[in-house]
């Protein structure tokens, strides 16, 4: 009886019915879709820029009325409804992820998924698309990291050589804070890694979250790896 692994290795030949040379008309259609996507993105950016200008104008008017200044970390009470540009970190009171302990999360965010190697924190409105909290026996589909904070054990995965990084201190130990170059993974993603008894912990934070570097460091300092976590290596 053949082993399943051997059959899997030979499957590319079995699926060869789709393996025909690309028709030039089909490729041209792909390029046309790309052009359309670029055009739509430009229109969206123009819309965002206009909204940002309006928001800044409202901010200036609101601050003038209230006689205060607004910084990135604080909110203005009452008045014209001016909001902070980035979410604040608040004490996390939800269910702790398996293998980790989390002290703070961005306000309104929740832990939506965890397993023996990682957990994912999602903003309001982006909680769906993740599997249920799982142990080793259930094996749900992996949760995607788009617009979410992902924390996982790094194992032996190398940091991309072209990532820019700086040394930082996490709870008295040396860590690193860096960013993925845009061409490697999702656009504008920062990462932070720090040592733990179970291995190196990686925190991935897309810029879309709005968190500052200081907030990312503060979030990471509130993460503890517990004895429940399996040691990851190799």
């Amino acid at each position, binding site marked *: *009886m*053949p*082993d*399943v*692994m051997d*059959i*899997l*290795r*030979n*499957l*590319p030949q*079995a*699926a060869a019915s*789709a*393996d*025909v*040379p*690309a028709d*030039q008309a089909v*490729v*041209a259609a*792909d*390029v046309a*879709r*790309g052009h359309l*996507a*670029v055009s739509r*993105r430009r229109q969206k950016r123009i819309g965002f820029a206009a909204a940002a200008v309006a928001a800044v104008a409202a901010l200036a008017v609101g601050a003038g009325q209230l006689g205060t200044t607004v910084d990135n970390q604080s909110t203005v009470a009452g008045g014209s409804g001016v909001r902070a540009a980035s979410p604040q970190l608040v004490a996390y009171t939800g269910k702790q992820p398996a293998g980790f302990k989390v002290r703070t999360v961005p306000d309104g965010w929740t832990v939506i998924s965890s*397993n*023996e*190697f*990682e957990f994912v924190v999602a903003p309001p409105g982006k909680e*769906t*698309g993740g*599997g*249920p909290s*799982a142990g*080793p026996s*259930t*094996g*749900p*589909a*992996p*949760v*995607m*990291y788009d617009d979410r904070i992902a924390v*996982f*054990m*790094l*194992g*032996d*995965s190398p940091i991309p050589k072209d990532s820019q990084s700086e040394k930082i201190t996490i709870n008295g130990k040396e860590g690193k804070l860096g960013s993925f*170059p*845009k*061409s*490697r*993974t999702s*656009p504008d993603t920062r990462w932070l890694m720090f040592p733990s008894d179970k291995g190196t912990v*990686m925190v991935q934070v897309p810029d879309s979250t709005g968190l500052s570097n200081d907030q990312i460091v503060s979030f990471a300092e509130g993460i503890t790896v517990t004895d429940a976590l399996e040691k*990851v290596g190799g």
Partner: protein
Amino acid sequence: MKRPSDQDREFTEFVTARRAGLVRVAMLLVSGDLAKAEDVVQAALTRLYLSWSQVRPKTADAYARRCVVNAALDERRSLFRRREQSFAELPDVAAFEEMRSDDEKILALLRTLPAGMRAAVVLRYVEGLSVTETAAAMRCSEGNVKSQSARGLQRLREFFRAHQPNLI
């Protein structure tokens, strides 16, 4: 900075050479449905085009593959709004035992795996990617890839062995 005409030419050359392979991977990821696979590849190539000016030639294949995997998992998640599948389904045993080739049986069994587990098995064992490459394509941790691919392989083996014809 490349001119748009150069970018289009390079993108066209890349897609002409790689499209069939991307469709093949997509088919394996979306249960063998060629129409769905085509939708997935179109979405992936659109995403690739948007990033093309920043994609280096050495990483273009890996990035294109990651776009296909993400598009395939997004396609699967759109069905999840109606019915969440977080566990493997059991295949129709009678239909399975009537299948003639091992390839056909394994393809049928792959369809029963949860989307992420299927992606890990396809990328690791069909496409031959390393754990690191698979984790990059799926944008998850290496530990997750190891556990998903190992469990997926175990499930395939268990069912395949249990329903093989007895050889005397």
